[in-house]
């Protein structure tokens, strides 16, 4: 088959316009991505001049992660926060979205108010909540004391029984606004005629919710839950500012462990291996969620 030179010329011309984007993408995305894989099989401290042959250790880092109890403990912590976010945070977001979807006074103000926590700086939120939870002079303990519940007063963030849940609550408070906005936007795309028709047929509010809202909202629920899982599993700043991963390892999450490997222990290779495994877990979770939602839609 003869290739016309005008076609080649056109293709090259098109390619050349895309070239800057391709090169930038390759330098700032593909190269670091591949570099992480390369470093994950090396025992490099991040400072010495890097030489692959000198630092290559094979799969040692991955093997070590598999038996690293603290790493898996941090995974469980992230999963615990995610579980709370998937349930309480998203249920709260859904309830508020349903409330604001109705014809009610000042609903625009509510929308703004509910969206304030997500736009606040996470560092500021973490520090404010750290003060609220403070065992000595925190607002929460002060309130409990005022109400006469002295037996409940204690150091919320220093107690391993409450530290992780306290952080999870703050994460939910900070994050429900995103779910609220997305769910509200989803609800507003549902044709009102469907509700009117259901009403004419004598459907109760619950019946309309279950048989109209829920089926129509499945793609939005999936989107919100995927975003919640991805966002929550990678929680970091709140932990860093509120507890620093402590007490002990009780609030460590994968990202704080990766950072600890990289900066505190100067184990770049190990940190990269942790990053790869963590990315893989997130990928599997997202894929599973997507598959589940597809099955749900078919049903």
């Amino acid at each position: 088959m003869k290739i016309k030179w005008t076609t080649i010329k056109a293709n090259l011309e098109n390619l050349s316009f895309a070239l800057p984007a391709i090169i930038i993408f390759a330098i700032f995305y593909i190269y670091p991505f591949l570099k992480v894989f390369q470093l994950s099989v090396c025992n490099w401290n991040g400072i010495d001049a890097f030489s692959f042959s000198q630092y290559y250790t094979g799969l040692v880092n991955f093997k070590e992660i598999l038996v690293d109890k603290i790493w898996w403990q941090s995974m469980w912590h992230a999963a615990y926060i995610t579980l709370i976010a998937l349930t309480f945070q998203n249920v709260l977001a859904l309830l508020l979205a349903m409330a604001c979807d109705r014809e009610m006074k000042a609903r625009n103000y509510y929308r703004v108010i509910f969206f304030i926590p997500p736009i606040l700086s996470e560092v500021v939120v973490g520090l404010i909540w750290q003060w609220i939870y403070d065992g000595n002079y925190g607002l929460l303990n002060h309130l409990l004391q005022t109400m006469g519940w002295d037996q409940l007063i204690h150091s919320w963030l220093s107690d391993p029984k409450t530290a992780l849940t306290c952080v999870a609550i703050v994460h939910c408070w900070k994050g429900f606004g995103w779910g609220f906005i997305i769910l509200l936007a989803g609800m507003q795309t549902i044709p009102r005629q469907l509700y009117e028709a259901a009403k004419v047929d004598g459907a109760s509010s619950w019946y309309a919710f279950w048989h109209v809202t829920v089926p129509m909202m499945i793609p939005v629920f999936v989107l919100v839950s995927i975003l919640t899982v991805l966002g929550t599993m990678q929680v970091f700043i709140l932990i860093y500012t509120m507890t620093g991963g402590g007490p002990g390892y009780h609030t460590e999450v994968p990202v704080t462990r990766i950072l600890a490997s990289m900066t505190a222990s100067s184990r770049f290779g190990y940190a990269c291996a942790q990053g790869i495994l963590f990315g893989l877990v997130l990928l599997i979770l997202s894929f599973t969620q997507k598959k589940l939602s597809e099955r749900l839609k078919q049903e």
Partner: protein
Amino acid sequence: MCFFKIILKSNSVIRALLCSCIILLAGCGQQQNPQEKPSGVSRTPTTAKKIVVWHWMTDREDTFQELARQYEELTGVKVIFELYAPSDTYSQKVRAAAQAQTLPDIYGLLADKRDFASFIKAGHVANLTSKMSENNGEWQASFFERALMVNEFSQGNEYGVEPGIYGVPLDVMNIQMLYNKKLLAKAGIDPTKPPSTWEEFIEAGKKLKEVGVQGLASGWGEIWMIDCFASNYAFNIMGEEKVLATIRGEVPYTDLDWVAVFSVFKQLAQEGLLADGIVTMINKTAEQNFANERAAFAFNGSWCVNVYEGMNPDLEYGAMLPPRISRNFPMMIWGGAGTSFMVNDRSVYRDDAVAFLKWLTQPAQQAYLAKQTNNLPANKNSLSQIPPILSDFAKRMDQTTHPNTWPVQEFPIVNERMNKGIQLIIIGEKTPEELSREIQELKERELAKQKQ
């Protein structure tokens, strides 16, 4: 060949490629505005010399700027101080710049000795020995000996670094215990005689508890402060030789002396001497607790003088050594160089950078820095003008030690596990014996890996 001919003949393709290249070059190139602060050393020497200094010390920024202005007036050399805070962000920036070889002419390094050695071996730090030795070692002799030790590598050091001095100390510091005179008096303890033994300290804690005052506040949410406290008692209980032998792997962490060190924390927690929430308390919060007279004792560095001055100028306090447990060995505290500046070996202005640091560490500039920032000067010839509380700290400089001056270094992962484990002892989740066994197992694993 035909393929290239097609490309070359095609004007539009060439134009498009040229456009792409220009966009790329424009995007990737560094903005060269002479008015803006330059970063890194990838510069060519120009007629007006500019020395770039990176640091993380927010409290000293204004003073540095003033000193830079004075230096420019004096020599015509412009010194640009660039502040990157907080310290952990700064530390990451320096590491990233080292990898990219874009470190500035002068920079501070927040790293342990092992990483410091890696920086030197990678060619990021200049050896200043010859400069220090000029004029019969006049510059070198002006510093506290302990201040220089942190930046020194001796003959046959375990890191394989060429012996020499690789940093210029700007100030010195040490970490001691502070006591609030008013609160001690309130608990019936003579504020002129703060507890000097462990028994007295425990007794003081009980008295403070009776009057509703918290005992010790410290930033033990930041694990290096726990490391520091534990290290003080390790030196006091078993002596320097045994501590170093443990690090070398010759003495196990399961040794009874180490169990005794970890038991210090257990006893502090059991006697109720620690401020609530100490295991997640950052040092800033601990400083607030002490400055606002909520806790009678603090464990903090000499930089606290400046911090407390800002938080509560009326605070009446004194500095003391951590109460000793054993009489067999001295109580050693962490100290030495507080802040040091390193000169980038690849800097095109290396000699000018050294000259600036030499000027910065002269008595007049050191006294000015101490006066403005309440830090202990590294130049011992400028001590006469410092406030009394700083003198309390300065008196103990001979009793200081620091991991960076030790001939051997513990594995960072072992240190982390130990300090986190101590947090768990404080909250009653682990016993000292359990922690000892756990650390020893980890240590043996790391030693085995090192041998491979």
